[in-house]
């Protein structure tokens, strides 16, 4: 069976500390079997701990980590890395980390990996890590979107911003589910940061958000009874076709008719990851639970529509 290489993404607004975070991670021995695609080698200041230069875009670090710049298209850069790995020209990395530029919408980067006919047979999407500057916060729409799609939030410059409570509350309203780390005070464990298996379980969320951040809000739905997987697919594909750009995030665990173990679904805008057949339920609760982070969509409309598609046996309620 082919082993798929996870592609993790580090995103965050301009000046939010992506490069500083990378500098710390690159020295971590846990990244010894990792290739890192960054915007500019010079920015990371690797000169003092270079082990070897493979070519003008690729260097090997003492930790065993392979560091490369992205020139041109991301897909071409990943294919080049893959080709070199297969030919034994670079160490056989088992994980790929991509640093996005500060203004980038994370969605096209994630989409590249899943849509490219070559990449999708060798790589899979991993974890999205978003850095947030504790001093400047998340004023820009790009920044809000980067927070919404995150699997991990890393709050940077917390030593310069004595009171982060307001910002943390704002982040929790946009993305209630992602673990939040503080880069200044906490040791950042590279393996834990990128370990997709450690993705947070769904937390309790109100069905109706009390104070959404602008038009972005997060809410959860839970429903009793096993659901029809195919009809759920009909509904979700229809929703994402028409409103995909407004569905910043959808994730959940589903009680699927005909299967004992739950199925985890996870989507970012138009892109839905391959559904995961979980080994077991995380707790005693056998209800299907879905978390949405949406921009400008009504939670009640989503609930009503899903209920109509799935039919009457399914009863939905706010996650208690």
């Amino acid at each position, binding site marked *: *069976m*082919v082993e*798929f290489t996870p592609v993790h993404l580090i995103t965050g607004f301009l000046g939010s500390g992506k490069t500083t975070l990378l500098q710390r991670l690159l020295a971590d021995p846990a990244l010894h079997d990792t290739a890192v695609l960054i915007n500019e080698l010079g920015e990371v200041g690797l000169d003092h701990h270079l082990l070897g230069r493979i070519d003008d875009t690729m260097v090997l670090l003492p930790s065993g980590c392979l560091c490369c710049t992205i020139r041109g298209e991301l897909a071409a850069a990943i294919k080049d890395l893959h080709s070199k790995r297969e030919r034994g020209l670079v160490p056989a990395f088992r994980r790929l980390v991509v640093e996005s530029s500060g203004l980038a919408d994370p969605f096209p980067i994630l989409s590249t990996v*899943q*849509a490219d*006919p070559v990449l*999708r047979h060798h790589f899979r999407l991993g974890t999205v890590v978003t850095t947030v500057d504790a001093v400047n916060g998340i004023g820009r729409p790009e920044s809000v979107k980067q927070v919404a799609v995150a699997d991990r939030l890393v709050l940077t410059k917390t030593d310069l911003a004595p009171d982060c409570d307001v910002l943390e509350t704002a982040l929790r309203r946009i993305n209630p589910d992602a673990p939040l780390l503080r880069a200044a005070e906490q040791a950042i464990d590279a393996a834990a940061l990128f370990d997709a298996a450690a993705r947070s379980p769904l937390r309790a969320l109100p069905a109706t958000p009390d104070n959404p951040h602008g038009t972005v809000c997060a809410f959860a739905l839970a429903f009793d009874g096993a659901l*029809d*997987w*195919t*009809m759920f*697919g*009909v*509904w979700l*594909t*229809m*929703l*994402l*076709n*028409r*409103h995909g750009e407004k569905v910043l995030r959808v994730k959940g665990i589903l009680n*699927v008719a005909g*299967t004992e173990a739950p*199925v985890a*679904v996870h*989507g970012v805008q138009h892109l*839905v*990851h*391959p*559904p*995961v*057949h979980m080994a077991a339920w995380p707790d005693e609760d056998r209800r299907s639970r879905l978390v949405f982070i949406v921009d400008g969509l*009504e939670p009640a*409309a*989503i609930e*009503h*529509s899903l209920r*109509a*598609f799935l039919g009457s046996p399914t009863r939905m309620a706010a996650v208690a």
Partner: protein
Amino acid sequence: MCALCGVLGGGGDWTDAAARPGVFTRNADSLQRRRERINRVACAQRVLGFYGLTLSDWQASSFVLSTLTGKSEIVDNLTHLWAAAEKLTGRPCDPFDPSLIDWLEGRLEAGGG
């Protein structure tokens, strides 16, 4: 692709995820794939009937979406289905449409779309 049944074993779409460890899919064997395709046509038809569209399986590899007047599009999967439905009908296929929800909940007769 299964050499006997001719059903492709899954492309890149999440509703047709390739069978591999940890992935939930109904692509694991040809019988399961065929059963799922029949089920998929039936489920999608519940919604497409509102728009006067008909979906049918084509050679167990694609689907054919047709209007009442015979205009047709070939679609690969559920993700492609809705863009094709919008193209054929010339109107948005919106899951929030109150008339569609009435139709699904049995309050609207055929032809209401």
